[in-house]
């Protein structure tokens, strides 16, 4: 069973702990400019939206890559960039409709979320649970539960 990052923008305060954790995990430094997850602030901060790769089942980036550098980590389901074959052509960044795979000038390769091999650093540090890591088949479970409780009439249906 795979897990997904489950994002609830309504809980995000834009503290950027996730961006620091991501950059520390992948570069060894606190450096939000190299984070693979970004917080998008709307207006003057009325909304803060954590955004990163959702690991498409049928991934545009993977299909577009001319060198076959993007493969699936079967253990996590993550689409992973293999640096030895990536030539930095950036075609995948054009193909991705979501902007979540990007070129890194320092390495000369593209970078994207790889779910930290199944233990995502961003989800671990998020103080408000705006980012959690859970069942990939039930990313809507929190909303489903909330909606079920809200719409429950209190009466048991009878035959």
């Amino acid at each position, binding site marked *: 069973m795979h897990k997904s990052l489950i994002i609830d923008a309504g809980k995000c*305060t*834009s*503290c*950027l*702990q996730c961006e*620091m*954790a991501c*950059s*520390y995990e992948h*570069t*060894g*430094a*606190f*450096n*939000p*400019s*190299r984070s693979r997850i970004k917080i998008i602030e709307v*207006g*003057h*901060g*009325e*909304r*803060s939206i954590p955004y990163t790769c959702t690991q498409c089942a049928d991934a545009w980036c993977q299909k577009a890559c001319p060198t076959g550098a993007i493969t699936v980590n079967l253990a996590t389901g993550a689409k992973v960039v293999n640096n030895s074959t990536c030539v930095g052509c950036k075609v995948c960044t054009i193909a991705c409709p979501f902007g979540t795979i990007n070129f890194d000038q320092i390495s000369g390769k593209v970078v994207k979320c790889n779910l930290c091999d199944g233990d995502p650093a961003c989800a671990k*540090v998020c*103080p*408000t649970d705006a980012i959690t890591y859970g069942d990939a088949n039930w990313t809507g479970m929190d909303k489903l539960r909330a909606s079920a409780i809200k719409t429950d009439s209190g009466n048991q249906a009878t035959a």
Partner: protein
Amino acid sequence: MAWANNVLRVNLTKGTCISEPLNMEWAEAYMGERGLGTKYLWENMDPQADPLGPDNVLIFATGPLTGTMAPTSGRYAVLCKGPLTGAIACSNSGGKFGAELKFAGYDLVLIEGRSESPVYLNIVDDKVELLAATDIWGTTVWHTEAWIKKTHNDPLIRVASCGEAGENLCRYACIVNDLHRAAGRSGVGAVMGSKNLKAISVRGTKGVTATHPEKFMDVVHECHRVLAESEGRKALTELGTNDMIDMMQEFGGLPTRNFDDVQFAGTDKINPSAMFEVKANGHRNMVTNKACFGCTIACGRIAHIDENHFSIVNKPEYRMASGGLEYETAYAFGPLLGVDDIDALTYAGYMTNEHGYDPISFGGTLAAAMELYEMGVITDADTDGVALNFGSAEALTIMSEKTGKGEGFGKILAMGSRLMCEKYGHPEIAMHVKGQEFAGYDSRVLQGMGLGYATSNRGACHLKHAVFDEDMEDISGNGKAEPCKTSQDHVAAMDSTGLCLFVEGAGMNIGHFVDLLSADLPTSWSQERMMETGERVWNLERRFNLAAGLTAADDTLPKRLLEVPAPSGSGKGKVSELAQMLPEYYKARGWTEDGRLTNELIERLGL
């Protein structure tokens, strides 16, 4: 290590931007941010310089923890000689700008001279340029930030700028970063404006690395855990700093109508409950809470104004959400003016952010103007026809806009209470220390706070000491001198780290700071070293002020607090016991009886 080992020296007169190595000897002795900035200021300018002249030096200083994963690591301090006070100014701010400066590879930016024409300083890692600000001069903080991001086609740029208030040399203009976080006090924005420097814009891609990364991360996780579990943290997250208004109301320490009273009947209309209340038309003031960089508390408020409110009914551009009420803004626009209209307070808060000026000093100055108006000293002829009565939400909203834009009576309000009241021949009406207006705590009931106000190196300020618990337990001035001195040193050390003071009330303690610093920096830290550093910082600030011409006579409070008893509350009938506390405080500091530093002290602290 967490230092970038790089100081950017910008000379606006010559148009030069030169990098130099960070003076590590000073960093060891003064830590960073407030402390290190004070040392650089002391070594780089004449304290007798005109605060609004080219010889004033304006410093943006980060701390050793700024930009790290330690909670609340977004802070930077702005230092210069303050135009409101003539004393050292040190105002710190959160948001995201400070961390970005560190990511670009600068520990400190030091600005000298004055540009002939308006410029902004654009920093993209090693590329540093002074660019023409002609298109943004005369425009707001909000416009400036949007314009810079659009012009450089980069939404990730962080901007700190002065609004029109800074350009117009409003004595309490601030520097605003990230739209609604500010280095708020003592007029640092006017110094920026006087230099023809509109903004600093930064993009940084270099990152920050701790000296001992794994050890550092262990401490970070422990800090996260402590904050997550703390009741103090939960209260700050849920209620914000304005939770204080109910506490001060109940205690009777809430300055009301220019300190005529210490309790205000209208707090339930402007407190956190009011911010969360859903009105009959479905409007709720509070939108969400928001964090500064790295902060797992998120005490910041994002709020919006009821679109039917008179302040914005013809101004659709203010129907969006923006920075909402913090305690000091709520106090200075609410009780201090006798206004209980939450939308008017929120609107005036927008004005202070958009045009760039300090809400505390503005509230204090408008309160003095209202008293002068009710005394008949000033009339409608002075106030552009606006009736400046206590309790008038209209007066607040109109004057907040005029002050921001530098129009009409707003130009008089921009002088600050001391100069304004001197102008009208009633200096006793101005409620200030060293020219700076008071935060929302009355010195007649909070005695240690009063001593802290009187001795704060930047004029009246609630953030340079922390004897709140002692004051709540005992409303006398007995035994307040020593704790006041100790907490001033403690806070000076905290302010020099790059973290936010609020982490202490939210569960962290000095031990966490020691552990963070020791993992972050090449040399190890201890509580003793931190406290000695704080004492060193405090005394160097004092030395700056004495050299600037201030004396023990400036360590005082207005007569109203020394002679007119509090009319209600826990301290009913009491006045400030400053006369008793101040000599004890000088003694605790090891100063002479007239408040000067001894040679022995200067030598011990290595000043």
